[in-house]
């Protein structure tokens, strides 16, 4: 989920659509996207895990790329 939300390859439906949505534009997530995952997984706790994992993937991608840019700037100046 985390990798998919960070622009990685598709994962299995129906998780793929929710993870991609959270990575690309979480504010456009729909009730149906969350409900479908909740039904497929059979619990709210599991749907919660998918949601947080996808969100974490998008954040961690940004951490990695930003720190890489800073490291390259520091390397060039040393």
């Amino acid at each position, binding site marked *: 989920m985390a990798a998919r*939300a960070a*622009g990685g390859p598709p994962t299995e439906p129906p998780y793929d659509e*929710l993870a991609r*949505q*959270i*990575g690309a*534009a*979480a*504010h456009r*997530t729909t*009730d149906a996207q*969350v*409900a479908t995952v*909740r039904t497929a997984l059979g619990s*709210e*706790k599991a*749907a*919660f*895990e998918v*949601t*947080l994992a*996808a*969100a*974490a993937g*998008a*954040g*961690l*991608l*940004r*951490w990695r*790329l*930003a*720190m*890489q*840019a*800073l490291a*390259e*700037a*520091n390397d*060039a*100046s040393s």
Partner: protein
Amino acid sequence: MRLPEVERGSSFGNRLLIGFISTVMRMRLPDAARVAFYHKDFGRPIGAWTHAAMRGSSSWTIGERELMAAMVAKWNSCEFCVGAHSAVAAKQLARPTIDQTLADYRAAPITNGLRATLGFLEKMTLHPADLSAEDARTVLRAGVTSEALTDAIAVASAFNIVTRYADALDFAIPSPSEFEKAGDMLLKRGYRS
């Protein structure tokens, strides 16, 4: 809230706590706090990261970091987090400064270092794959240290997570006075779950 169990609490003790805090605060406990109480083992690392980034040692003030969080929320179109973090920032910075920064940080009355840092965080949020060493150098040339930029990156990373689950779960939007009250709690207690 799209997951009712998160909203009402997953155990009797959890529901009691949500009810108690709501009564003491005289408002509906914001969904961000309900998420923090739910499935703690899974969400605790995100809370710990957010708390360290927002309340840990840094050359940025708490108000500046809350403003960065509000800006990430704005770029990600997260109404809940814009309201929540601009309310906390307003307890440390002048409200007109926050409103002007949210409207146009390039023209707002903020330091050049914060302005340059926000430029980096905007690209990091909206076009992360386009970030380059030159973007970082632009911030460093504005007088921001490498450590301070790292701290700002940690804030923006945390809120690129928080804003996404806030919107995916469809957090209820508190009223302005409720954001004010919740802001007092966030300023006092931070983000540890």
